[in-house]
């Protein structure tokens, strides 16, 4: 639940459908099509005849910028050039900002000839929104950041009656087109609960039509319930894609699916499959602190995963979650000891005994693996039924011979990390 990136295609479509309500002169061409690895190019061309009759632009739509600099944008292209570009680039593996990933989604739209590129973005803050505007848009906007005007718009402002002109730089003869465009865009931003919107650049054609060229946007996904007619339409909601090259492992996908099915929260990201320290921490806040402490005490490179379980998950779901982490920590045994932290703060109402019952079952089902991988378990937890829950952990250690150290609320929450450090140093 937070601000979520959306595809450029979706951002442009949303603006295309909403902006004319406030800026009737928008007249956007609204010719956009996505080509992905499974697309039938000939069919796309026949369904979008403008590709044959107009020159087009092709670029990846995968949430990364500076596509021109990476030679991943083709301008003013004929249909044949477009086909060649698609065939050449789809499924191609690239490294973008140090992250390896596959190009698998291209956006095709009409090429719009222009001399000048303008910049506009809208950001949010606690008391204000900010409209950022510059006559020097395009790829050099960051270098020319001092030329960007930042116009604060206080929360709750009615932009339509607001004297925007007075606070904008001198727009010269573009005033009559830019002021209604910016006002309309801002109103769409508010209406649709954008959290961020950047059009860089946009062009103004000779007949004074505004054409967004590159668009980046984030939506506030907590507002989805207000937008069932547009981006959260239950029949075709916008996708919130992960970053370029982000691939989830089968375990991560399984936990994500489980998370979506329950009212509780189950999160898992694998950081280093060969790591020697793994965590299974209850609570979002506590999981951050455990991860911090592991990094702060110098074990960042050894950390196998980030994740948390919270919101009183059922015994069964806790067991599946625990089993997944146990399978991961034991999957690549080596000569060194491994450490599993079953940690957490003092719970409000999550029943420690109930959740630990699930974890204990997973441990009992994995005794041989845990021994082979030389896993040592450190437990620290408090909350309802803490005594019984912690006792279960002690017992399973005694019964199975797996080394399990158990600490209660009287031991500082992250002290187990320090204890692991000492164990590691003495071995």
């Amino acid at each position: 639940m937070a601000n979520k990136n959306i595809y450029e295609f979706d951002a442009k479509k949303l603006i295309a459908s909403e902006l004319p309500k406030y800026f009737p002169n928008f007249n956007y061409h609204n010719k956009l099509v996505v080509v992905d690895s499974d697309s039938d190019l000939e069919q796309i061309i026949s369904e979008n005849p403008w590709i044959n009759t107009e020159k087009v632009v092709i670029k990846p739509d995968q949430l990364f910028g500076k596509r021109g600099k990476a030679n991943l944008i083709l301008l003013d292209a004929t249909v044949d050039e477009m086909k060649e570009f698609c065939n050449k680039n789809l499924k191609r593996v690239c490294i973008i900002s140090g992250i390896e990933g596959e190009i698998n989604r291209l956006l095709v739209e009409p090429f719009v000839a222009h001399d000048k590129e303008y910049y506009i973005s809208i950001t949010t803050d606690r008391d204000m929104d900010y409209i950022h505007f510059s006559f020097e848009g395009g790829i050099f906007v960051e270098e020319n950041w001092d030329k960007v005007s930042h116009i604060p718009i206080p929360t709750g402002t009615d932009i339509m009656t607001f004297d925007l002109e007075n606070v904008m730089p001198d727009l010269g003869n573009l005033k009559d087109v830019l002021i209604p465009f910016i006002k309309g865009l801002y109103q769409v931003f508010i209406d649709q609960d954008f959290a961020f919107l950047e059009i860089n650049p946009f062009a103004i054609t000779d007949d004074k039509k505004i054409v967004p060229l590159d668009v980046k946007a984030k939506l506030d996904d907590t507002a989805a319930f207000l937008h069932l007619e547009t981006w959260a339409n239950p029949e075709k909601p916008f996708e919130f894609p992960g970053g370029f090259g982000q691939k989830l492992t089968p375990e991560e996908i399984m936990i994500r699916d489980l998370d979506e099915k329950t009212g509780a929260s189950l999160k898992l990201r694998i950081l280093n499959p060969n790591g020697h320290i793994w965590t299974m921490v209850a609570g979002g806040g506590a999981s951050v602190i455990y991860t911090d402490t592991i990094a702060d005490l110098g074990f960042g490179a050894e950390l196998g995963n980030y994740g948390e379980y919270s919101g009183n998950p059922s015994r069964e779901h806790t067991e599946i979650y625990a089993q997944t982490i146990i399978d991961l920590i034991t999957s690549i045994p080596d000569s060194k000891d491994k450490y599993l932290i079953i940690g957490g703060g003092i719970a409000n109402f999550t029943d420690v005994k109930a959740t630990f019952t699930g974890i204990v079952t997973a441990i009992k089902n994995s005794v041989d693996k845990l021994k082979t991988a030389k896993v040592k378990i450190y437990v620290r937890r408090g909350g309802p039924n803490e005594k019984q829950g912690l006792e279960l952990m002690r017992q399973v250690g005694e019964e199975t011979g797996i080394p399990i150290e158990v600490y209660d609320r009287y031991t500082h929450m992250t002290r187990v990390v320090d204890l692991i450090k000492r164990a590691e140093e003495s071995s």
Partner: protein
Amino acid sequence: MEDYDLFDRKTQAIIYGFQRNAIQRMLDFDFICKRDTPSVAAVINPTQTAAKAYHKVFLGSKEIVVPIYKTLKLATTYHPEADVVINFSSFRSAYPTSKEALETPTVRTVVIIAEGMPERYSRLLIKLAEESNKHIIGPATVGGIKAGAFKIGNTAGTIENIVLSKLYRPGSVGFVSKSGGLSNEMNFMISQTTDGINEGVAIGGDRFPGSKLIDHLRRYEANPKIKMLVALGEIGGIDEYAIVDALKNGTIKKPIVIWVAGTAARILPKGLQFGHAGAMAGSDRETAEAKNQALRDAGAIVPDSYEDLDKLIRKTFAKLKEEGIIEPIDEFEPPKIPLDFKDAVRLGLVRRPTDVVVSISDDRGDVPTFAGVGLDSIVRDNKSIGYVIGLLWFKRKLPDFAHQFIEMVIKLTADHGPAVSGAHNAIITARAGKDLMSSLASGILTIGPRFGGAISDAAKYIRQALQDKMNPPEFIAYMKDVAKINIPGIGHRIKSVQNPDVRVQLLKEFVFKNFEKHPHLDYALEVEKLTTSKRNNLILNVDGCIGITFLDLLENLNFTKEEIDDVIYSEALNGLFVLGRSIGMMGHFFDQKRQRAALFRQPWDEILFTD
């Protein structure tokens, strides 16, 4: 109450949303704090139909009521002293309800529990609160606690935890964090390293929380009872820089121990969303390291990692104590909350006799069972209604012939035309405009000694005759001279030896074919021979035949004498007639209703008037 306080020992709240557990937990806290008044003044339950209802809660072992109003307006009108609204409404309605609360003059503080409020809504509420000089805690928070005075909703968990963390009396530490989940951990840790919490607030993990860390730290700074500050920040946003500024310009002078969580972001994949909506660094300034360093540089006490946080808190407090700044605390033993009955039962501490013993069915498991047989298997195995009656009435899994017999009886008794007492009454009642239940009951209430009752009585007397080994002539004499009634089940208005009742024939055929033994029927037929020799319509009638053959059924099912006594004593035979005939009486009711039949009135010419 001073400006810097949001809550004191007199603070009363209005709870938006009928949160039974949260309300009881607040009152349990009130009890162990020895508050004079309950901290919950009223509850709002917008879905209730009544303008005002009452909710029973415990204050210690005493039961009190809390009014529940349909609207906030009613609650604030009748409880103008309640200046806190704790809003439990969902993310969908949290905005309009919080707005209404902030716009109410008597309300000073609004706590928003819901997670997932759209950011723009949060910002509009923040603006509204700023303009009206009011306070917001949340959204996405468990709330906060003023030790020894007032507890928001579910803050601080169970009462055991509250006692262990000494939250029932104020200490000297003001604490504020983003995370509500960790506030419990911190409350306890602070109780172990200092003289305890004075006030602890969790502002919630959203990008735009209704109040900021600095807002609460400023209140703590102004509060002379609070001697040191502890705060837990988080990666993302720049709110912690307001603390840096306050330290630099000297508006915060009390020692502050603070840690900004999220230092591990550097080793995690870029863009990974931590637990909270606000927890993502958008720029270098928003990283945990940058904020920790800036705070350290400004004079805050910042550990190198969370691992050392407890040690620094302990050290800082010890120093204040040494300096004589810490005032002694009036310690007291908090009263014990009486155990809830259901918890005491669970723990095996009390026992209570039950009121009712039930032996035929159980609906506590996944599938209801009838006499131990799961309803699912009854349906899957396509068992008949007769089989279900066998389970629920006689606690037996009946063999095929037995449940077929029962179903036959139900069919035979289902209806006997509109003129008989039951159907007639049902029709008249239906036409008087009454409902199904009244019309059916009216019909059923006619069943008795003269209508439908022959089944049970026939069974009773024939059984007695057999048991007493009377021969049929002796039995007929007994009925005439001792019982002094006509033999129940013998005689028909129209039917006769020459014009037999087809229903009786069918019953007899079934019994002869399917029952291994049928002594009662045999005996009754001997009696019939004698009675029909006197008058040809003194035949075994259908009611008598049902009652008598039912006794044979029980014999064939190996019911003992005592068990058969129980069946007759418990009126199971009447039950068969009531069940069967209800089908017909409902049919008559539906028939009249469909026709929209008008009120029935007996014509005068069918009545002979006399004095």
